[in-house]
């Protein structure tokens, strides 16, 4: 038990240290722009279709599950509000980050893990190349940028999916549905001209993207013992990322909405 706890604290310590080291190198982002662009493609474009598909069905599920209950009380015209708030506040950011943890996070851990066990990381060190600036910073920044972008898509397609269910299963017209969606997202907060439910969701996505990338890179660079070590690093990256996303989600939700 005590060894598990000490391992846990050692892991968290390593991840936090890595996060601080990445933040300290943020100034070299422009120099790393081509690496960041490459990572944006790897972690963004390649998972768009997954986010769209999952987002559509999540919106449909939320609409169906809540709509059927609301219709028992004749309140199904509120379905637009529920789907919009659910998607923008929670489901969009969380689902997108989870998809990224499973796809991009696992790939980051496997890629860096393979580099660790094949001595490529050691090679960078002996060449005095800053591994964090060269390898970790571009990956973390790309994930932090791409996660909110994909969340916008997830939110939008989820709302569309909810609309399809509202019309086909709950007899709520499309115009009524979209009116209630827009009405629910009218709490505009300064300094943004975005509804609070949207920008808080996007901020959460930004944090989730950074968190999952830091955790995945940390798991990768610590990999040892050949293929088995890379497998362990990948599993650890996905598991720890999802746990961290959920825990962070609670605290960010509490911070934004506990009033």
């Amino acid at each position: 038990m005590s060894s598990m706890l000490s391992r846990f604290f050692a892991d968290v310590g390593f991840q936090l240290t890595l996060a601080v080291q990445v933040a300290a190198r943020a100034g070299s982002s422009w120099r790393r722009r081509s690496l960041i662009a490459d990572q944006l493609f790897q972690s963004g474009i390649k998972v768009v279709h997954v986010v769209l598909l999952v987002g559509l069905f999540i919106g449909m599920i939320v609409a169906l599950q809540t709509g059927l209950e609301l219709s028992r009380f004749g309140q199904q015209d509120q379905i637009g509000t529920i789907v919009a708030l659910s998607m923008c506040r929670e489901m969009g950011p969380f689902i997108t980050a989870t998809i990224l943890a499973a796809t991009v996070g696992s790939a980051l851990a496997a890629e860096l893990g393979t580099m660790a066990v094949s001595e490529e990381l050691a090679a960078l060190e002996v060449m005095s190349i800053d591994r964090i600036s060269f390898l970790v910073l571009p990956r973390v920044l790309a994930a932090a940028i791409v996660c909110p972008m994909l969340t916008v898509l997830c939110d939008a397609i989820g709302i569309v999916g909810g609309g399809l269910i509202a019309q086909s299963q709950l007899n709520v017209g499309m115009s009524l549905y979209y009116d209630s969606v827009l009405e629910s997202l009218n709490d505009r907060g300064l300094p943004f001209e975005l509804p609070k439910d949207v920008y808080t969701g996007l901020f959460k996505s930004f944090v989730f993207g950074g968190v999952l990338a830091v955790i995945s890179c940390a798991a990768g660079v610590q990999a040892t013992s050949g293929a088995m070590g890379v497998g362990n690093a990948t599993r650890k990256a996905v598991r720890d990322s999802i746990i961290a996303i959920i825990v962070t989600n609670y605290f960010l939700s509490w911070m934004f909405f506990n009033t």
Partner: protein
Amino acid sequence: MSASVQTKRDVIIRYEDVHKAFGPKVVLAGFNLEVYRGEAFAIMGPSGTGKSVALRHVIGLLKPDRGVVSVDGRNMATIAREELRELRSRMGYVFQEAALLNWLTAGENVALPLRETTRMPDAEIREKVNAKLALVQVPDVYNKMPNELSGGMRKRVGLARALVTDPEIILYDEPTAGLDPEISSSINHLMRDLAQQLHVTSLIVTHHIGCVRTTADRVGLLDGGKLNFVSSPQEFIGSAEPRLVRFLGDKLD
């Protein structure tokens, strides 16, 4: 060359009573060695005896539990970060599996230390990379990805990367492991020619006697955490010492 160098006793790499353990496994236990400027020293030994561990101390990838490893008079365990950077720029390291980044071309791999640690213009980097690739006899691989290269070519590209900063010291970690005898022989001759042309100090970890014969001025056997039987390759191979005879046994056939 080695005789005159030894007379001057200009030591560039020094291990003094170095101890290193990983958990309960003791790898180095009182390891001592002096490598003279300009010589090629080979560390031989059975697999798993800590040859690579000894090599990694020289470039600061590992720190000894006890004892001192110094390069050009500077203790690698306590050296300041900037000084370590400067010292590493004077060393090249050839990894056992070449350790090329698989998402960069061979040329980009060789160019990497120059791009990342110098302000050299791109045209000059390109010229220098092409010159080093030609020097290691793979002039046409600049745009090839590492997975398109044979094992021997990858080793040569790894060697070109180690040479691109014009190092004074080259560390070879099993330079001929996993290669067939013909390619091993060509790599050995390349190492010897480079040492003669560039006047670099070489520290070579190997378990191939052919590599020692071709490239080394002196050789020692790492056994039980200590370096033993340090001598010239001829004396080493011809020794009647039972431990050495047992180790060399089938390697001489």
